[in-house]
């Protein structure tokens, strides 16, 4: 197995290559506005650093969010195009699961905890995990202050927790998910038979769109309405 993993659902544009024994190379750059510029060069760099070629890839794993939509789509559509052209499967991983996996790998959490990323508009994307690292609630999007006390009181990882440190009592690292964690999580599931998600975005919100109210009359005092 040679699995290419990446995620663009947070400010971290992160890429890693994993054969089923471990991570061969990885690269992470944090820039919330340049996912579209950084991802493809990052993929080329990681392949080169590992001395492998795209033709050797057997699987692609991509973070499917939740995360800000514009950046999120960069990762997913890149994965779909790569998978289509190379004829390899594309697996989806919840970005919060990758963040949670990184936290347990780094030892910043041991018991139950919550992972949260910035959803903008004063909200966070979040999920809750048990002491074995299994997701037990979420992903969801809410205002940090409106989360249940027992969620907010848990150790909390991710930039969403750091941003609302006054709501989350016990904020811990890491700030962002990384593709090395995402790759390791995906390989564990693929080898262990746990199953992964479809490569489709977890938007969690409907698109903002307002139906315009009838057309605006230009003559003052006109009757309005339509012809």
């Amino acid at each position, binding site marked *: 197995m040679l699995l290419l993993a990446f995620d663009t659902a947070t400010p971290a544009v992160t890429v890693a290559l994993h054969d089923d024994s471990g991570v061969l190379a990885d690269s992470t750059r944090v820039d919330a506005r*340049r996912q*579209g*510029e*950084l*991802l*493809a*060069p990052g*993929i*080329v760099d990681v392949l080169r650093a590992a001395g492998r070629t*795209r033709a050797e890839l057997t699987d692609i794993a991509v973070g499917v969010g939740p995360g800000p*939509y*514009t950046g999120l*789509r*960069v*990762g*997913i*559509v*890149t*994965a*779909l*195009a*790569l998978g*289509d*052209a*190379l004829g390899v499967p594309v697996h989806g991983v919840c970005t919060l699961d990758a963040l949670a996996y990184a936290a347990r790998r780094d030892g910043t959490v041991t018991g139950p905890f919550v992972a949260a990323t910035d959803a903008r508009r004063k909200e966070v994307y979040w999920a809750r995990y048990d002491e074995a690292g299994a997701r037990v609630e979420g992903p969801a999007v809410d205002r940090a202050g409106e989360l249940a006390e027992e969620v907010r009181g848990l150790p909390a990882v991710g930039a969403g927790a750091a941003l609302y440190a006054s709501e989350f009592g016990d904020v811990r690292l890491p700030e962002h998910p990384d593709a090395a964690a995402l790759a390791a999580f995906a390989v564990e599931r693929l080898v262990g038979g746990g199953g992964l998600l479809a490569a489709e*975005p977890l*938007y969690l919100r409907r*698109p*903002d*769109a*307002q*139906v*315009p109210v009838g*057309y605006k*009359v*230009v*003559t003052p005092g*006109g*009757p309005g*309405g*339509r*012809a």
Partner: protein
Amino acid sequence: MADEPLVLGIETSCDETGIGIVRGTTLLADAVASSVDEHARFGGVVPEVASRAHLEAMVPTVRRALADAGVTMHDIDAIAVTSGPGLAGALLVGVAAAKGYAVALDKPLYGVNHLASHVCVDQLEHGKLPEPCMALLVSGGHSSLLLVPDITADVRPLGSTIDDAAGEAFDKVARVLGLGFPGGPVIDRWAREGDRSAIVFPRGLTGPRDAPFDFSFSGLKTSVARWVEARQRAGETVPVADVAASFQEAVVDVLTRKAIRACKENGVEHLMMGGGVSANSRLRALAQERCDAAGIVLRVPRPGLCTDNGAMVAALGAEMVARDRAPSTLSIPADSSMPVTVSQALS
């Protein structure tokens, strides 16, 4: 010819996911998935709805284009993509997909200008672009007159709209008349039943001291709205066909008059038309009439290639390859305000 480059073009600047495949100047496939129906009830394109639709349509539309062209992914020599101008989030889906295909196939990437693509697409129908030529580019987002010495590297704007684009005027007047979205095709149809000299609507920026190659359609739209509202207030029925025909005449009269003058003043013998509004039947007829009278050769692609599509992007990409232009890097951004003077994003 089999030795000409086989180019896949990706277009996602607005609400159409367009995938085209060309070999040199030969069109092999033009697959389009449109989200226009999802936008119609909002009376205009909703960017987030368009971006979501592009993501879903991308791979299936690429597959459809390959099947239509009877080629495989591995036959592709280069990937071209609209890198701007357009809706930022929508463009980004196409640019990221193009990079994914370019990386996977290890083929060069060309990030090209949407407006230059609208001009270049005519190569697929009428052969190599005559250069220099004049281009009248009229769509939902743009109305410009361009002098084109080299479509891949030297495009010079002579003038453009100072307010609404021509297509925008069609869309807004259609709303005034309660005809739905997009307005261009409906007004074109209604106008055929109407009298184009029934009402004299103003011709913007046609005074002796006005900028000779700039356009203005906002006053025209307001004037149509006033006229219609006055009839409604008087309790009269609005003669929709006559209003549509008279409005349309005002737009195409100004467009063609200025285009011919631009050709004459620059000593250019070929006028190209492109963009969604050049699908308009009256614009095509009047431009032909006036070009014939002035001894100018008019070139307009068939209506299906005037609106946004992937074939036009592939056409410009193929021209970049044919002229040995260096490919774009994998770092090119999606540039929502890419200037018309930049035919290709390099890095």
